[in-house]
């Protein structure tokens, strides 16, 4: 689509206008009735009589040699069609670094790693046959932490890392080490200015890996037609990346792979990278292309599938006596687990925004994504940003205390503004960054901040903590989205978009945008909630809070294109100029013509009563490719990682009981610069939901590994998450500083409620204890250990 039809250039329609009738209002969600009536279908709901079922055998060892594997007994078990080992399908897979065999070959590198897959007529037969596969392991030394993995004498987990296929822009492994990627930042003169600092805060931070806790455990169905066409139905956030991954793994044409995604029951990043899809394709191949379903149990989701990344980090933050930040030096050792997956990109995301939303002229940062014998790590809501925020904000708090400055004021003093540059030296021009000082001012009011972080109430301590956060996406420079708008006979319209409905409600927001362009009720806009990669236009991935920017721009452009086509045909009918045709409320009208014609009458061109017809079928099309993104320089990190930054100021108030080291969160606050709120109720739900998730992660979640590296709590009965009733009061305020590249100036919103919660909770607890709390999860046991040294 040429820029001439860009909405920004259309005289008659602009998404920069503030007068809106649908956008900015809370409308009914498009997925509600299917979900509340139980009619929404998820991948595992697809059951067919000729379908075969697969079950996974996974490694009980975190690191071991496989001495022998024997499937003879399993092959004789009832209903078993095939048993696959790694040597049967020796292809490596993984994006951006193909470091992972589909099934372990010779070595297992984490407990939970797939070792064999059984395909049988019935699921219970496949599951029962697992016990008949004989595998003999010889355990190897286990690498349990990213810092241990960084030690020069650590066991080498991937000695052949230099031979792996990789995307050179996204993964930078260092052969002969356990470093899956190294991402540096060198801005200003970080090594020369420390002497000029009046005070320096040094903090070390750590937390273990954790689970995404999506409600739907993933399921995958694969089938291969006799002509080689592959059909994959899967619970994924990234259907459009699967054809290329299958192409790279199996050497089939990407165009031969069709991916179908029904509803997805939550993702939070955990379904953003296709992990087991290649394995199920291999399973289908093993049974002549028959349809095979693999359903992950919760234990698999927590031990086998990629998780939230773990971290050990150290930070040094230097400032002048008046509180102005001068320099920062940060090292992250991320626990990326046994295979790199998206962890290498999470590492880059943390590095690129490592300073938080503060102006720091001199920055040195080294992000190492380390191989360990833990489960692989991937995207998690916030994508590197809850992690970098936790690190920098702990240092800001310590610095404020050392300088006897108000923690809110030191944040305001250093808040990044238009005209400043980011750690990657991106100049923040125009509306690229939201209003950080504005967020801080609103937070001050919202949490009734008077400079006192702590007050005593009998045997309890009431404490407040705060932080600021920011995030841009880590989108590749060609991340794109397309949309199609069709006009229906009944004068409704249908929007096709490749965004996956993962519970976030993006398609409702897109319908609002289309309705706004058509100047009609959102009830007249239909959306197709399922995604088929051969039917819907491509949408990069349903991740990174990018749905409303990428697909929003595409949908608006498609709607404008459809309106333009309607105007052209109607102009012939009305005998007026196209620009004089008004499309609203489902009809076309013209000032000097009494009759209004329903837009459905123009669906396939317009037919006059005498049989003549004019015009053509209306197909509105629109697309958008991300702008202002450039790769980071491998030496200095200089580059532009994303188009715009959503910023926020967040806080929590807690009640702490020193006697038994217990606490509860009373209130949690978020002030987020949303650019433009498209759907107030959805936006509020996103932010509160994200805050809930962040507080749950910060206060109680995390894998507990045994001494041998096995996750010991891979079930919800022993892995606590926030339950209904555990949540505090939520207070949320939105600011609206527009981003001129986005429809109505909106900014991404899906993750930002979470990002600051761990840091804000750590801040409040540190204030309550009078000792720094720099670890997650912040359980009572942790506080007890910090308070007593126990």
């Amino acid at each position, binding site marked *: 689509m040429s820029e001439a039809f860009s909405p920004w250039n259309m005289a008659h329609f602009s998404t920069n206008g503030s007068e809106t009738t649908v956008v900015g209002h809370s409308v009914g969600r498009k997925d509600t009735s299917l979900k509340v009536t139980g009619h929404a279908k998820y991948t595992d709901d697809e059951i067919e009589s000729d379908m075969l079922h697969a079950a996974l055998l996974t490694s009980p060892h975190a690191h071991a040699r496989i001495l022998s594997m024997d499937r003879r007994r399993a092959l004789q078990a009832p209903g078993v069609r095939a048993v696959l080992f790694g040597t049967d399908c020796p292809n490596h897979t993984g994006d951006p670094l193909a470091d992972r065999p589909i099934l372990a070959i010779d070595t297992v590198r984490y407990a939970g790693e797939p070792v064999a897959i059984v395909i049988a007529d019935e699921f219970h037969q496949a599951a029962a046959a697992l016990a008949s596969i004989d595998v003999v392991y010889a355990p190897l030394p286990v690498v349990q932490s990213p810092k241990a993995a960084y030690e020069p004498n650590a066991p080498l987990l991937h000695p052949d890392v230099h031979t792996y296929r990789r995307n050179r822009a996204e993964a930078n492994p260092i052969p002969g080490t356990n470093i899956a990627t190294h991402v540096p930042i060198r801005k200003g003169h970080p090594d020369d200015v420390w002497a000029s600092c009046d005070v320096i805060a040094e903090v070390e931070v750590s937390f273990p890996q954790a689970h995404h806790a999506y409600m739907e455990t993933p399921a995958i169905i694969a089938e291969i037609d006799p002509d080689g066409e592959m059909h994959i139905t899967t619970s994924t956030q990234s259907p459009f990346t699967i054809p290329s991954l299958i192409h790279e793994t199996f050497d089939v044409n990407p165009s031969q792979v069709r991916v179908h995604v029904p509803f997805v029951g939550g993702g939070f990043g955990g379904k953003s990278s296709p992990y087991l899809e290649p394995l199920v394709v291999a399973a289908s191949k093993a049974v002549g292309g028959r349809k095979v379903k693999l359903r992950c149990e919760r234990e698999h989701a927590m031990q086998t599938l990629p998780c939230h990344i773990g971290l050990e980090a150290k930070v040094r933050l230097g400032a002048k006596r008046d509180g102005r930040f001068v320099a920062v030096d940060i090292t992250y050792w991320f626990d990326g687990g046994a295979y790199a997956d998206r962890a290498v990109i999470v590492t880059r995301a943390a590095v690129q925004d490592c300073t938080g939303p503060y102006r720091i002229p001199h920055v040195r940062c080294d992000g190492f994504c380390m191989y360990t014998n833990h489960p692989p790590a991937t995207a998690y809501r916030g994508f590197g940003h809850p992690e970098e925020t936790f690190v920098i904000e702990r240092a800001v708090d310590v610095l404020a205390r050392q300088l006897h400055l108000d923690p809110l004021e030191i944040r305001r003093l250093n808040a990044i503004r238009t005209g400043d540059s980011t750690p990657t030296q991106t100049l923040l021009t125009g509306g690229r960054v939201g209003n950080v000082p504005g967020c801080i001012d609103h937070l001050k009011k919202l949490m009734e901040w008077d400079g006192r972080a702590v007050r005593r109430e009998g045997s309890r301590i009431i404490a407040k903590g705060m932080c600021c956060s920011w995030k841009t996406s880590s989108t590749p420079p060609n991340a794109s989205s397309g949309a199609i708008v069709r006009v229906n006979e009944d004068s409704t319209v249908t929007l096709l978009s490749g965004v996956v409905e993962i519970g976030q409600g993006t398609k409702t927001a897109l319908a609002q945008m289309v309705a706004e362009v058509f100047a009609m009720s959102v009830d007249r806009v239909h959306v197709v909630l399922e995604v088929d990669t051969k039917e819907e236009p491509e949408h990069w991935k349903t991740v990174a809070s990018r749905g409303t920017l990428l697909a929003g721009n595409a949908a608006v452009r498609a709607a404008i294109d459809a309106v333009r086509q309607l105007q052209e045909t109607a102009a012939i009918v009305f005998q007026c100029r196209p620009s004089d045709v008004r499309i609203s409320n489902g009809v076309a009208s013209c000032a000097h013509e009494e009759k209004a014609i329903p837009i459905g009458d123009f669906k396939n061109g317009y037919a006059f009563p005498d049989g003549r017809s004019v015009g053509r079928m209306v197909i509105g099309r629109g697309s958008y490719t991300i702008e202002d993104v450039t790769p980071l320089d491998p030496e200095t990190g200089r580059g532009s990682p994303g188009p715009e930054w959503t910023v926020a100021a967040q806080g929590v108030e807690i009640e702490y009981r020193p006697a038994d080291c217990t606490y509860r969160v009373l209130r949690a606050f978020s002030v987020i610069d949303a650019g433009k709120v498209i759907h107030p109720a959805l936006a509020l739900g996103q932010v509160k939901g994200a805050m809930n998730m962040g507080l749950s992660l910060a*206060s109680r979640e995390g894998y507990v590994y045994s001494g041998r590296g096995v996750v010991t709590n891979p079930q919800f009965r022993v892995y606590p998450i926030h339950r209904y*009733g555990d949540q505090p009061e939520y207070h949320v305020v939105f600011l609206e500083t527009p981003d001129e590249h986005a429809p109505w100036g909106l900014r991404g919103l899906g993750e930002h409620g979470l990002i600051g919660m761990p840091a804000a909770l750590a801040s409040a607890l540190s204030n309550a204890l009078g000792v720094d709390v720099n670890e997650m999860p912040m359980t009572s046991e942790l506080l007890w250990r910090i308070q007593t040294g126990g």
Partner: protein
Amino acid sequence: MHPMDFEYVSSPTLSDAVRQYTRFAQLGKRPMYFGGGTEIITLGRLHQVNPDAVIDLKPIPETQVMAVQQGQLVLGGSITLTQITDAPWLGEAFPLLQETVHEIADRTARNKITIAGNICGTIFYREAVLPFLVCDSKVRTYGPKRGKERSIHRVFNREARLEPSEFIVQLVTDETARTAPFVHIKRRKAGRVGYPIVSAAAIRIDDRIRIAFSGVCPFPFRSSAIETILRQRGLTVRQRVDQAIQRIPSHLILDDYEASRAYRTFVLANVLEEILQRLGGA
């Protein structure tokens, strides 16, 4: 989905249940008695419990009794935890039991879990037994030698000690104990649902505090040695608490994903102190 095939039979009478059990066992099958089924479902899917047959005891009328008979509270083994928490009269008849079982699992699970099922469970917390341990309740069982009534302490020591085909029919509790001053405290890693770091049920009869624990060790227990120390005169509360904890072999104190051994010991000390304060032993 349950990965294994098994037979299901329901028994209408006490003797039928034992007969069914014996029949399956003679056929070389592994039978299990079935109450709420929560463990059989959740552990079965992990192949940790593999019965060939289950015998449902819920239809047996004796296991459904909930009544006070001559001052004795009789509770059938098939009574669900929800039935206990939702019966208003039990708030007076056995408040400690009501409070204790209300903290087990969540409502959905309590709707299924039976009292005998929890006491005889594989998952070692078995918190429903705590009130019966401190009340010196009687247990009526049925087995190959027909019905028996014994002290809870004969039937339960760390876990239920029953003949293979024997099952709990009823639990019988005296009025004095079940209406005595009581405390139940449960401390978890986080939140209001989940397994205990420490769960303790206590009553006070005259000057003696009786106390039973779950979550401290991989089994519930009541210890007369601990109770003796707790009422020793001439010692501060803290001293009594510390000495009581020393009576628990430290290698038996759990050290796992819920809590480390050291932290669990700290929590136990706090719980004991609070119990002594609230029951007036301080």
